[in-house]
């Protein structure tokens, strides 16, 4: 290892070093510092308030709702997107021709901006929209989609599931490719039913790809913002108030920069611990069933 090469290495790595300093380490320290102040984002002065922001935050309905809403989104969104992407992957997988073309088609929703998909859904679900006209006339149903807590959460979860289905199906099909046809042929000879075939052969072999999809989709639920901001603003009555929404509202609408920094730190800790625990549980579940 010559010194010249060492210097070149540092030179090539320097963009990261600068980036990590300016956009990671400095903000990180600043955030911690702010979380112990009552700064309002504009005023030149502020005072230290100790851990008051943290105790205040833990008691507030905004933070408590953000904690639960994330898990509610997880409970609706993850099963939805996993099921739909498995269905898409299963259907596309067996096609001898145009498989790639279909996969590209199913991937297209991933390209939509959250603003655009929210706009379309808002149009589709407005009071006089064809969907609601139909529901009213056919079944006498009058649903206030974005005004009732569960429906609003469900609508947002569906939009995001729509976006990610094709992407996850692509991941799953590469998992299918690792399953050889000989296994199926052997099972066919042994007279295994399609249902058994799915659970005893396909599912265990698919598990590594499925694990990736599960981890990715769980990660998504901790970062929901655009659709909620656009459609509900976190409402009705905090029913869709995610961490990002809560921090954004506090910091940039209410100008409570110090308080919002404390929430951001709480959110990061909760996110980190939750993902860690869920990951470990998933790994244990896979191991116990002998899938991984």
């Amino acid at each position, binding site marked *: *290892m010559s010194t010249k*090469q060492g*210097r*070149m*290495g*540092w030179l*090539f*790595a320097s*963009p*990261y070093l600068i980036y*990590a300093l*300016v*956009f990671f380490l*400095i*903000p*990180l320290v*600043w*955030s911690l510092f702010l979380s112990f102040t009552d700064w309002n984002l504009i005023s030149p002065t502020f005072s230290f308030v100790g851990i008051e922001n943290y105790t205040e935050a833990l008691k507030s309905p905004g933070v408590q709702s953000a904690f639960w809403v994330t898990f509610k989104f997880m409970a609706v969104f993850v099963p939805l997107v996993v099921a739909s992407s498995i269905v*898409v992957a299963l*259907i*596309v997988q*067996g*096609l001898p021709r145009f498989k*790639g073309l*279909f996969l*590209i*088609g199913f991937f*297209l*929703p991933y*390209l*939509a*901006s959250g*603003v655009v998909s929210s706009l*379309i*859904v808002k*149009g589709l679900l*407005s009071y*006089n929209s*064809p969907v609601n006209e139909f529901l009213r006339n056919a079944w006498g149903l009058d649903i206030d989609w974005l005004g009732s807590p569960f429906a609003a959460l469900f609508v947002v979860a569906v939009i995001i599931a729509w976006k990610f*289905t*094709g992407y996850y199906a*692509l*991941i799953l099909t*590469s998992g299918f490719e690792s399953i050889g046809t000989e296994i199926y042929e052997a099972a066919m000879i042994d007279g295994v039913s399609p249902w058994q075939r799915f659970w005893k052969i396909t599912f265990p072999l698919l598990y590594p790809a499925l694990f990736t999809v599960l981890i990715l989709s769980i990660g998504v639920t*901790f970062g929901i*913002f655009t659709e909620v*901001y*656009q459609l509900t603003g976190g409402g009705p009555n905090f029913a869709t108030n995610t961490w*990002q929404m809560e*921090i*954004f509202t506090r*910091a*940039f609408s209410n100008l409570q920069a110090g308080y*919002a*920094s404390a929430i*951001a730190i709480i*959110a*990061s800790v909760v*996110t*980190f611990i939750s993902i860690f625990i869920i990951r470990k549980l998933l790994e244990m579940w896979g191991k116990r069933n002998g899938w991984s």
Partner: protein
Amino acid sequence: MGGAKKKGLWFRYLLAVVLLLIMIFPYIYMVLNSFADWDQVDKKLFPTEYTLQSYQWLLGGGEAVIPRPWLNAFFNSFIVSGASTFLMMVTAIMVAYALAKMPFKGRDTINNFILFQMFFPAIILLIPTFLVIQRIGMYDSYWGMILPKAMSLWAVFMYTNFFKAIPDTFIEAAKLDGASELQIMYKIVMPMSKSITTVIFLFLFMERWTELLWDMLVAKSDNMLTLNVLLSQMFGPYGGYPGPMYAASVLLTLPIIIIFLLFAKKFQEGMQFTLK
């Protein structure tokens, strides 16, 4: 047996087509409504009267403070996403090459730190990053939108793994021929990385093009807004103009779909690689 199998196949294709149509229905709805007569927008699943009025409104300027706000925002989106993606690619390639192919003291430390930062919840950085941008005088500027998104750790991670798989003998042979590090990257490493470069480029560009939160915080003046931010601001107060909002959605979605379809074949090859 053969007949039954063929029938089953037909059924599968039918199922796939129907499912695909359902999945892309929101796009179809968007396009149809952007051309629909203003009386029919959001009133019918398939409008019957069509007009170009929405696009005329959009391109002619609509009602706003600055002339042609939508075209201006479209232009801003390209500048911001283009510059940001370009920088993310260049920095990722440089750093990944150093981490994979240039032995130097402290390399493992940097590598571990990148992994640590990758799994660190980014939400904590939102407010202070905004303050950093404000303090260095980049609030309400292109650079303010570009610089905090000038590097992607995910891209560094992907490239590092890919470069590690390239045999050292290629690089050493080139070095003996007197090639510099930059020449090696440009002439040997990059041509070998075409499909993974396509995948990384597409994901970065898609993500940057549809970014809302950050651009919304940094861009304040009317002439600085990206198309995504302008659309986000307008579809509430401009509820009276649903047609043009659909036209703006088409304007926002079309470029990214075209770029994706241009690279779709390479993208699929690359995806197969990255998933293995």
